[in-house]
């Protein structure tokens, strides 16, 4: 059950775990990403949008709270403020009642009711939270006192006896809504919020694994309500509450603890044997409750605290185990939160235990510190589903509540153990609490923020690099974006979904981030649609937050802009080139044509025709984009065949290539003009009857030979005029080499070798 004994989970995490993590992704394939996010918390996708059911629950909750308030408002009470002087002495501080106003400062000794009912007053009368009384006897005493007091108040007028002999007859009046006090409403609102969050989680994802969370939320909400009732101002508790308060609060506490264990066996992943573990937790809680209900268990407070602390420790262990099975940052966060809650509970229990048996003043402090601990716990429960999306303010609030718990517990401890003065202990405890705050804040929130934050400079550098690459290769933008996201977040797992999404969002409990694959290339209809899912940021040590989603959206937007800009520039360029080409072709071409028709001799005419063809090649190269070698070869062949046919020269043509490369504009026009020039040469000078053109492309190396059977000889003696010079120049431009040799007995062989053809120049 306990985690295996491997060294550091985060250090051991990356490589071997990825495979298992992949196997564990159950909810993230096509349909899953939308319907079943990986973790507890639910609300992310669909649902902060008010669902109808949630509204109904909220209304019902408000109604329930109102009914409770109404019930409480009808209960009779004595409106007065009291203070515990010492164990035996309870002092009246003030009261708006006319009968008591004059008695301020008096020490209450006894309360008489009807039918000779009476209670002897001591400090326990003001202790209305039996749950946090350590000692069995004093707890029983408190409960009896409260019960009798509320019975007496229910029966009518009571007489308050004071130490100095004075007495006052007081008619208990119903509280009214105003008499409930602000604190009750505050707690009521908090309880309502807890209940709503629990209901929302359950409604958004009605699955058994979210049930424990709902139980915790509900129990803590009820706990807060119970505290609200216990801290009502004045004397007198509602009659129906006094006998059952203790058991109810114990039930809430124990259920929460057991549900916490249960939850951690289900989330973020189902643990093997989790069923047995949670059953054991629930069993212990139920047993303890049953025994307490029968009052068969001595030292009930100790047992309760022990079970709660035990459940806390168990949760810690389970989360550690879960994190080793799958490095989900949510497990890490849960572990730390559980650690914080358990540690503060331990401190509080120790403080209360030490303080028990001290005088009443300390008892009062004990009650207050327990209330603060519950508030702390409630904020944690409240925030758990929203941890990845909530505002930093809320996080700080939760931390503050925790710090306050520490402060009051410490204060209590100091007062009880060292008998320090109130001021000294307060300042000491505040100091220590701040130390604890400062040292744990980072540790606790680290799964949220991470140590990372790559720094603006590095971030910019990465972004810039990827932008450049996307501009260069827009087709790879998806892969490049994935790489950038990998660098930014270092997730354990990246996968692509076919499902498109509109914007980035945090999935599950912050363990995953869904990023839409941008349609970066707007012209391209086939642009990839889909999403990238990143899981477990920073190798599973950090949770994704909404800030991350926002950042990602911005990055994607920047990428899109960069590509759009680049495209616009490219479009502008090609439009400009096309315009120049058009002008050249239309104006110069028409003039050359006229000149050609008027040519005085066939030589001049041919020369001009050649020029015109070169011009056409040039303008076409300007206007068109890249060409495939196979297409170009087909055109060369047709052209050459036609020209040789007119000159009565036989052509044999072989062209073979292992790969159909794409020729850049420069390569295409260079090769076209080289071929034209060489063929012209053969037609004009060789007097050949046969021309053999053969070309092979192997591994990017082009070898082109033209062999004629003409009269040409001794190529080394040729004077390289405009034509052959042009051929040399263009072959050199292609990075190749050209040679002329004698072809056996008759004719010339020209060999052009271009070592690297294809790709872009």
């Amino acid at each position, binding site marked *: 059950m306990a985690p295996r004994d491997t060294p550091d989970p985060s250090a051991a995490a990356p490589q071997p775990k990825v495979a298992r993590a992949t196997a564990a992704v159950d909810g993230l394939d096509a349909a899953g990403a939308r319907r079943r996010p990986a973790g507890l918390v639910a609300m992310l996708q669909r649902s902060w949008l008010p669902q109808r059911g949630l509204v109904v629950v909220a209304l019902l909750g408000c109604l329930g709270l109102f009914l409770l308030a109404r019930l409480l408002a009808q209960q009779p009470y004595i409106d007065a403020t009291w203070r515990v002087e010492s164990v035996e002495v309870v002092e009246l501080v003030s009261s708006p009642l006319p009968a008591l106003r004059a008695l301020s400062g008096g020490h209450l000794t006894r309360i008489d009711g009807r039918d000779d009912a009476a209670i002897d007053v001591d400090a326990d009368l003001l202790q209305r939270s039996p749950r946090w009384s350590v000692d069995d006897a004093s707890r029983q005493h408190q409960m009896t006192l409260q019960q009798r007091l509320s019975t007496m108040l229910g029966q009518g007028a009571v007489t308050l006896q004071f130490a100095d002999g004075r007495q006052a007859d007081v008619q208990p009046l119903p509280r009214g809504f105003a008499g409930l006090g602000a604190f009750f409403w505050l707690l009521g609102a908090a309880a309502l919020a807890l209940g709503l969050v629990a209901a929302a989680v359950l409604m958004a994802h009605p699955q058994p694994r979210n049930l424990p969370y709902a139980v915790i939320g509900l129990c803590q909400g009820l706990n807060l309500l119970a505290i609200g009732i216990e801290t009502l101002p004045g004397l007198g508790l509602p009659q129906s509450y006094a006998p059952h308060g203790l058991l109810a609060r114990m039930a809430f506490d124990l259920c929460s603890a057991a549900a916490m264990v249960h939850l951690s066996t289900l989330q973020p992943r189902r643990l093997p044997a989790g069923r047995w573990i949670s059953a054991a937790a629930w069993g212990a809680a139920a047993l303890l409750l049953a025994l307490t209900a029968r009052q068969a268990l001595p030292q009930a407070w100790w047992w309760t605290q022990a079970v709660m602390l035990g459940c806390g420790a168990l949760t810690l262990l389970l989360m550690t185990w879960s994190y080793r099975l799958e490095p989900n940052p949510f497990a890490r966060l849960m572990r730390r939160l559980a650690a914080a809650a358990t540690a503060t509970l331990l401190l509080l229990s120790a403080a209360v235990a030490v303080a028990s048996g001290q005088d009443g003043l300390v008892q009062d402090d004990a009650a207050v510190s327990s209330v603060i601990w519950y508030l702390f716990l409630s904020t944690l429960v409240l925030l758990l589903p929203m941890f990845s999306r909530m505002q930093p303010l809320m996080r700080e609030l939760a931390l503050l509540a925790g710090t306050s718990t520490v402060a009051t517990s410490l204060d209590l401890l100091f007062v009880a153990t060292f008998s320090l003065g109130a001021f000294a202990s307060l300042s000491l405890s505040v100091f220590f609490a701040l130390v604890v705050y400062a040292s744990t804040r980072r540790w606790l929130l680290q799964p949220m923020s991470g140590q990372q934050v790559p720094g603006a400079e590095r971030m910019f550098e990465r972004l810039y690099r990827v932008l450049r690459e996307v501009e260069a290769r827009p087709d790879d933008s998806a892969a490049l974006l994935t790489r950038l996201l990998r660098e930014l977040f270092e997730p354990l797992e990246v996968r692509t979904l076919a499902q498109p999404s509109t914007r980035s969002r945090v999935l599950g409990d912050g363990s995953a981030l869904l990023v839409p694959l941008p349609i970066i290339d707007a012209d391209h209809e086939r642009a990839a649609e889909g999403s990238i899912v990143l899981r477990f940021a920073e190798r599973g040590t950090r949770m994704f937050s909404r800030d991350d989603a926002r950042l990602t959206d911005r990055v994607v937007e920047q990428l899109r802009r960069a590509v759009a800009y680049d495209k616009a520039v490219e479009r502008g360029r090609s439009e400009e080139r096309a315009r120049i080409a058009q002008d050249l072709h239309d104006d110069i071409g028409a003039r050359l044509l006229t000149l050609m*028709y008027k040519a005085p001799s066939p030589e001049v005419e041919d020369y001009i*025709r050649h020029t015109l063809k070169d011009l*056409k090649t040039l303008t076409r190269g300007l206007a068109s984009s*890249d060409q495939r070698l196979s*297409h170009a070869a*087909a*055109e060369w*062949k*047709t052209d050459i065949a036609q020209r040789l046919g*007119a000159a009565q020269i036989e052509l044999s043509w072989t062209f073979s290539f292992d790969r159909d490369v794409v020729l850049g504009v420069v390569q295409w026009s260079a090769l076209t003009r080289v071929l034209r020039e060489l063929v012209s040469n053969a037609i004009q000078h060789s007097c050949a009857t046969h021309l053999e053109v053969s070309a092979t492309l192997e591994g990017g190396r082009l070898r082109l030979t033209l062999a004629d059977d003409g009269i040409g000889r001794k190529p080394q003696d040729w004077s390289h005029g405009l034509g052959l010079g042009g051929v040399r120049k263009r072959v050199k431009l292609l990075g190749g080499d050209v040679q002329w040799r004698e072809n056996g007995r008759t004719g010339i062989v020209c060999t052009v070798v271009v070592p690297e053809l294809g790709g872009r120049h």
Partner: protein
Amino acid sequence: MAVKVLIVEDNPVARSFLCRVVRESFSDVIAITESGDLESARRQISLTGGAQGLHGVDPFKLLLVDLELPDGNGMELLAELSQYPATKIVTTLYSDDDHLFPALQCGADGYLLKEDRFEVLVEELQKIVRGQPPLSPAIARRLLMHFRPGGSGEAAPADSGFSSAGSFQSSRPVPIEKPLDHERLTPRESEVLTYLSKGFTIKEIASLMGIKWFTVNDHIKSIYKKLNVSSRAEAAVLASKQGLV
């Protein structure tokens, strides 16, 4: 009776050159009408019975139309004259398929490249009139794409980078209506086109396919016709979609 020929060409030198080509090409008595722009060409045509070539008036038998004219593109005239009973030939300086293919779609029966030598032009003109129109590899490729099931030449880019056989697969949406027969090429015709697109000459194709060279020519003629018909059908569909008809 003289054979009537209309030459639409704005460059006077080129015009007289084309006149020489026409006269050289045919032994009949030729009556050549010349016009320098679209407007005068239209006028000439309406004098001889209008665009439909009806009324029993003696129409032009041969039209040579330049693509780049001062008051518009020769293709406009070709499109108007789709029913005109004459051999229509485009004369142009542009030899690339981007310019020529649309002209063929508008109903041209062939094209002449103005920079070719006199003798070549004469030969080509004779061939076209005899029904042996030229077909360059680039245009053959365009034709293949045009007649590809489900795709018209305009929808697919001329060079998408995916023109290997692999991309001609079934992932394209299948057209709901079955294309009519006149919109489809026979297997022999596609074979001829494929060879042409690879740069084979007609003689080579004839020997590769084991048929006579004039049979190859017949295929090419038939392809021209189908292109014309299918383009017109396409235009009609387009027009009715836009509510023009």
